[in-house]
């Protein structure tokens, strides 16, 4: 601290400002190192033990996990669940964001509140609400039966369809918030300019609005993907025991079987596979929107 001040006096005010700013980030950096980096390193270390007592170093846990074809299917299912949820949130969320842009400021506030409200409730509460909605005697089945659309109750609980439906609602704020924040920074005259030049609404949407809102769309997709692939509570409560995703495997290995090295391998597989997809998505996003930041 003292040396920083002395340097500041020597090098003038700019320098002192920069040092002070750098120091302000120090507590966060330390917390980050202690609470995130250290456990991650511990996790990596744990994965290189062979036995559940963590006594004998080796690669047996990695070999065991990746020697089982079932685990490949679990990884693929997990990533697919994320992609399906991303698709569903885009299909529902993008039009919703467009509607939001057309509303009066007062209605925008109301809609924003409705969008954010689910985030104020615990995931557990939201998930159990979906059980009520999707169950055999739930709202959806009652309505469809009543309308005569179906004669037998649909099985929605413990199916991937039901899980994707509920995750779509649960993750929607993560899609909408970045999307709306990017869209509301768009110059409203661009739409009018496009129309005055003879473009139809669809043409304006696909040649002007979608490319310019791509950064928000990409950010939303990344958040939804990361969040839905790791949504342990929703996955297990709505998906049940028959739909197995990586978070469930981790839970079983660490808290049921107590084989921590295997749990560590499963965790690292989840981290790496999710990060890979995210890196790919954001690379595509950056390429499609490089003209905006570049």
């Amino acid at each position, binding site marked *: 601290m003292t040396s920083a001040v002395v340097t500041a006096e020597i090098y003038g005010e700019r320098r002192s400002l920069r040092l002070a700013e750098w120091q302000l980030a120090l507590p966060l950096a330390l917390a980050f190192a202690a609470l995130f980096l250290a456990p991650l390193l511990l996790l990596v270390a744990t994965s290189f033990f062979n036995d559940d007592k963590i006594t004998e170093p080796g690669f047996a846990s990695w070999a065991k996990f990746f020697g089982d074809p079932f685990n490949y299917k679990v990884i693929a299912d997990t990533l697919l669940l994320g992609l399906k949820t991303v698709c569903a949130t885009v299909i529902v969320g993008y039009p919703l964001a467009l509607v939001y842009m057309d509303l009066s400021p007062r209605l925008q506030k109301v809609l924003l509140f409705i969008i954010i409200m689910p985030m104020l409730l615990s995931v557990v509460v939201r998930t159990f609400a979906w059980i009520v909605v999707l169950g055999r005697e739930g709202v959806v089945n009652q309505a469809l039966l009543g309308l005569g659309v179906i004669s037998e109750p649909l099985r929605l609980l413990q199916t991937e369809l039901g899980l994707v439906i509920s995750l779509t609602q649960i993750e929607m704020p993560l899609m909408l918030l970045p999307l709306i924040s990017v869209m509301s920074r768009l110059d409203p005259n661009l739409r009018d300019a496009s129309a005055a*030049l003879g*473009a139809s609404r669809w043409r304006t949407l696909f040649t002007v609005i979608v490319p310019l809102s791509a950064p928000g769309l990409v950010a939303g997709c990344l958040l939804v993907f990361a969040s839905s692939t790791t949504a342990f509570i929703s996955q297990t409560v709505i998906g049940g025991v028959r739909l197995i995703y990586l978070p469930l495997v981790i839970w079983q290995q660490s808290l049921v079987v107590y084989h921590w090295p295997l749990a560590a391998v499963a965790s690292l597989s989840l981290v790496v596979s999710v990060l890979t997809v995210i890196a790919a998505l954001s690379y595509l996003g950056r390429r499609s929107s490089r003209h905006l930041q570049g």
Partner: protein
Amino acid sequence: MQALAPTPQQVAPAGRTLDVDNLTVRYGAAVAVDGVALGIEPGEVVALLGPSGCGKTTLLRVIAGFVRQAGGRVLVDGTAIDHLPANQRNVGIVFQNYALFPHMTVAENVAYGLRARGQRGPSVDQRVERMLEMVQLGAFRARLPRQLSGGQQQRVALARALAVEPSILLLDEPFAALDRNLRLDMQIEVKRLQRQLGLTTILVTHDQDEAMSVADRIAVMNRGKVEQFDTPVAIYDRPKTLFVNGFIGTTNLLPGKIAAVVGDTAMVELGAGATLRLPAPQGIAAGSPVVLSVRPEQLVLSPIATTDSWAIEPGLSLPLGSQLIHEARTVDGAALKIVEPRRHTPTEVPRRFCALATDARPSLFPRSTPTATE
């Protein structure tokens, strides 16, 4: 399509008439445009001039089809276009902030309207090249808008609007963001293009000098209404209302009252202490309070009193180029500005009297309350 080739010797194609008929626009309870009527000739440039918030942009947005009016009609060549959506009106518009598509190059921006009309292939490229040549930006075709200066962006916006051969051109304060020299260049440029293409044009501006120099006619707006729609000279010399009078140019306001009306001559008793014989405005009766408006260059100073002059208290005298601006105050407290050509020898005798110049064209306006003079 070929008719738009920018060859100066070419006869300008016949433009369209644009008529705005009793147009009213409301935003909630507020009236933004209030019964505006304008008849614009083919190939004419009309400037919309008025204070901020008087409804100029709103009027343009209705003509372009972005905003629906509460009442009234817009007609092009005598045909109402109100039922048409914006993308079928063929109205070119240049926004104040240009609204170029930030993710498209200059050439893509200019080609946008052609592509939207389903044109493809080399004819599009040719036309884009021609438009870019016209605004002298051929070398910038591959740049993105944010890599251009304000003036260059403005020219791209103009090229983009003109590429689709609009029948009407709307310009919303297109020169506001430019510095003085560039603004003059662009004003000349726009005027030249507009003449060449014979485009019926509305130009919104805050700048009365710009309106005076670019427009064939000026519509002065105030609070959603057109106060006067006339040639620049007529607006300057014969303002119809006190608002127009005050908005265009500088003016001196002298309160007084009508002493008598004889035929079409009114005797005006100024508070400053003179009685003037002036042409009587319509419907003004003896005794009614009036305010006399006269331009600074239409007043003269004199060392001796006459029947038509009034006493003043001279203030500062400032040289401004070839002119001398005198400040003065009348006995009833009104501030005066008098402009005269600068003479070689300054007058030694103090000139304590002021009168109308022989060619002065003062205007008389009724005054609602005796005190509301300035």
